C-alpha cells in the first residue's frame, strides 16, 4: 500500500525537525502510543494501540530513523506486529520551509500489511491509514506549538 501526502505545520523547520527527532514528542504525537523506548542502536521500540474509532489493535514494533539529513529529510522504517497482523513500512520524510514559520512535511512510503488487517480490512485500509497519519501530524503540530517552537 502506497502512503503519501503532505502536512503543513505552523512552525519553523528546525523546530519541526527537533520534535520529529525527540522521543518524548514523538511518543506524544504517535496515535495510541503507549510506550516508546530508545534502543542502543538508535532505533526505538514502540507499543501502540492504534486504529480508527472502534477498530483498533495493539502493536509492538520497531521504529528506525535512517539517512537523516538535518533538517531536510530522513528515512523512516517501521516494523511491528500485533493482534491485527504485521506491518512493515518504509518511507521518506521531507521537510520544506514554505514560508516564515511554516513547514511543509511531505511523506511518501510503502507499507506492507499482513494478517488480519490485510485480509479483512481491505475496504477501509487506505482511508484509515490516511486518517492515522493525519492525526499524527496534527498532534505533531500541536506539539511544536505547545513547546514554543
Amino acid at each position, binding site marked *: 500500500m502506497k502512503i503519501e501526502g503532505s502536512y503543513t505545520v505552523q512552525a519553523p523547520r528546525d523546530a519541526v525537525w527537533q520534535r520529529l527527532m525527540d522521543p518524548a514528542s514523538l511518543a506524544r504525537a504517535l496515535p495510541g502510543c503507549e510506550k516508546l523506548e530508545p534502543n542502543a542502536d538508535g532505533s526505538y521500540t514502540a507499543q501502540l494501540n492504534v486504529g480508527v474509532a472502534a477498530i483498533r489493535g495493539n502493536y509492538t514494533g520497531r521504529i528506525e530513523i535512517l539517512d537523516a539529513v538535518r533538517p531536510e529529510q530522513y528515512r523512516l522504517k517501521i516494523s511491528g506486529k500485533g493482534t491485527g497482523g504485521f506491518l512493515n513500512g518504509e518511507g521518506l520524510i521531507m521537510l520544506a520551509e514554505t514560508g516564515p514559520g511554516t513547514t511543509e512535511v511531505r511523506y511518501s512510503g510503502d507499507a506492507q500489511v*499482513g494478517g488480519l488487517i490485510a485480509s479483512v480490512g*481491505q475496504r477501509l485500509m487506505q482511508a484509515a491509514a490516511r486518517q492515522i497519519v493525519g492525526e499524527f501530524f496534527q498532534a505533531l503540530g500541536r506539539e511544536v506549538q505547545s513547546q514554543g517552537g
Partner: protein
Amino acid sequence: MATALLGERIKRKEDPRLIQGRGHYVDDIVLPGLLHLAFARSPHAHARIKSVDVTAAQAAPGVVAVYTGADLQGKVGMVPCAAGIEGLKVPEHPCLAVDEVRYVGEPVAVVVANSAYTARDAVEQVEVEYDPLPVVVDPEKALAPGAPRVHSKLADNVAFVAKLEGGDWKALEAEPGIKVIRQRLINQRLAPVAMETRGVVASYSPGEDLLTVWSSTQIPHILKTQLALMSGVEENHCRVIAPEVGGGFGSKLNVYGEEGVACYVSKALGRPVKWIESRRENLQATIHGRDQINDVEVYVRPDGKVAGLKCWIIADLGAYHQLLTPAIPTLTALMIVGAYHIPCVFVETKGVFTNKMATDAYRGAGRPEATYIIERVMDLVAAELNLDPVDVRMKNFPSPKDFPLALPTGVTYDSANYQRTLKKVLKAAGYTKLRKEQERLRKKGRYLGIGLSTYVEICAMGPSSRMPAGGWEFGSVRIEPTGKVTVLSGTSPHGQGEETTFAQIVASGFGIPYEDVTVLHGDTGVVPMGIGTFGSRTTAVGGTAIYLAVERLKKKMARIAAHKLGVKPGELEFKDGKVQTAGGEKAMRFLEVVAEAIFAKQLPPGVEPGLVEQCVFEPANFTFPFGAHLAVVEVDPDTGEVRLRNYYAVDDCGRVLNPMLVDGQIHGGLVQGIGQALWEEHVYDENGQLLTGTLMDYAVPRAHQFPWFETATTETPTRVNPLGAKGVGEAGTIGSTPAIVNAVVDALRPLGVRHIDMPLKPEKIWRVLRSASAA
C-alpha cells in the same frame, strides 16, 4: 402411482428437515467431554519459523493442550495427494507447518480448550517468530529462472509438465490458407464458499481402539482410508460419518490437515475434539478453484472450420498438493476440444507452485476452464472471419451419427446431438429477433450483447482405469420385514437430492410408494464401501448400482413369488404394490412376497432367506452431457456496468429422472458460473496477502442479482449405464461462464473489442469504453 415415478417432478425428501432447521450438521454433534480446537495460522506467505512459544497459550485458563508442527512430526502422516501424474513432484505437506510456512493461513499450531471461545482467544497467545522469505505469487514469475522457490528442496517451482497431442500437425501447419488466431485467456482464482464451512469431530476410544470421525466431507470412505493411514489407527477400527453436509462444490472432496490434527489430538488426549472452520479460515485455507493462464492458438480454415487447437496451460497450484490438486488442470486438457470435431490438438499443461492456498476441485474442476477456452475460441473465430457464432458452431459440430466419437484427446464421447440443443436455445431466445434488436439499439448508442456457449462436459466419473481411487460405486438394497426398503449408497450427497432420486429408482423398480424407501449414506459404519459424491457421478454411477441391486432383488422375489403362485418367474411384473402376472390374474402383495422371503417357510430350493442385494457398478466410460446456453446482456455505456437481461439454458444430461432436481442443479450451477464471469475473484497481493478475506470483499453471487432463468432439456440417453442418465451437477457452471463473457464481448464488438478477462468488473469495461471513445 408408483411405476411412473422415474422422470416425475417430485419434491425432495430431504427438504422438510433442511428448511425447518432440523438437520444435523457436524457442529450439531455434541459428545460428553468434548474439547475444541482452534488453529494458529501464518500471517506470512512465505517465512521460516524461528520459534513457536506456546507457554502463554498453554497457561490460559481452560486450555488443555497446545501442539505445534514439531510436536506432531512423525506422529501424523502427511496431507495426502492422490493424483497420479507422470513425474509429479510431491512436496512434503505436514498437517501443521514445521520449519517453514508457504501460504497465508497455513496452520502452525493447534490450541485445545474446553470451549471454542477459549481456544480462539488462546490462539492469539501463541507467539510465533517468523523470518520472512521471498514470496512468489504470480505463476509466470514463478517459472522465471532464479525465481524464489516455494519448496527449497525442489529444483524449481514446476510440479509437473504434461503433454497431450493428437492429429497430423505437420500437414495442418503446411496447409495453404490456414489462419492462426492467438489469444491469452485468464481463468481467475475462485473460492468455493460452501454455505457450511468445514468441520470435524474426532472421537477416539482407547479401550476399543476405535476412531470415529464426523466430517463435513463429500468422500467419507476415502477419508476413512486416509485418516487411518495418517493417524495409525487400523482402518477396520476407523469410522467416518458425513452427517448433513451444507454444500461442498468440490471443496470437501479432500483430506485436510485439520482432520489429521483432530484425529491425533483425540487419540493423544483420549477425548473427543471438535473443530469448526470460521468463514475467514474457509476463504483462506479451504481449497480454491480455477486459476489458470491459457495461451491458445487456433488453426482455422477460411470457411470457419477449426482444424487445430494448441493451448499452453499454466496452472497455479498454490503451495502444496491437496488430494487432487495437480489432476484438475489435466481435465482441462482432456476436454479442450469441447463439442467440436477438431482433428489436431496440442496441449501443454504446467503445474506451478506459488505461495498461495492450494487449488483443487471446484464445481466443474478443470472442465469450466476447458469450456471457457473452446467457447471463447469459437467466438474469436467468428469475430475474426466475420461469421455468425451460430454458424461457426454448426460448422464444427460432429453429426449425431458420429457417436460414440473417439477424439484426439483420448476420450470417447458417448452420445450427443449438439445441433438439437443449439436450435432449441436459439428458438427459445428468439435469436433472429434479438440480433435485429441489437442492431436497432446500437444505432442509439446502446450496447446489447448476445452470447452463446455450446458446451460438453465429462461426467459420471468414471471408469476405474481413469480414476486414482477407483471409479465404481456401491449400492445395496434391503427389504425389511415390514416391507420398507433401506438403501445404502457409497455416494455422499450433500445437497444434490439423491435421497429423492434414489428412492424414485427403487420405488419405481418395485412398484411401491417412494415414501417406503429410505436412503442411507455417508457413514462408513453403515455403508460397507464407497467412493463419494463429485464429478456429477452420484446418480449415473451410484444410482445405477442401486438400480442393479433392485433388479437382482426383483429376480429373487420373482422366483419366490413364482414358486408360490405356480407360474414362471419371467411372467411376473412389479406393479402397484403387487407382484403379478401381466394381466393381474395371479398376484401376491409385495409385502406377502417379502414375508415369504424373510420368514422362509416355503422358499424354492436353493434360494437363501432374506432380501438384501448389493452391487458395485463399474462404468465402462464417462458420460458427456452437453447443452446450449444463450445470455443477453446490456452494458451501461456511462459506467461499464453489465446487466444480465435474459438467460436461456437448454441442457442435455441424458435421461432425466426428476426434472425438478435437474432444474435446481442447473439454476445453482448457472449462478456460480455467471458469478465467475461477472464478480468473483480471489485476490492475493504481490506479497501473498489474501485481500478478499471476507464475504464483504469476495463477491458470492446472490439470487437478487439474476433474472429468471429460462431452462429446458433435451434427452439423449447414454448407453454407459442402464439408467441412461449422464449427470447434471456441474453443467450449469461449466456452460454459463463463457456465455456471459461472449455476450459482453459481443456487446462491445462495435468498439473493436475482442476479449476482456474475467471478472467483468464495471471498471474494466469502463476503461475499454473510454479508450475506444478516445480512439
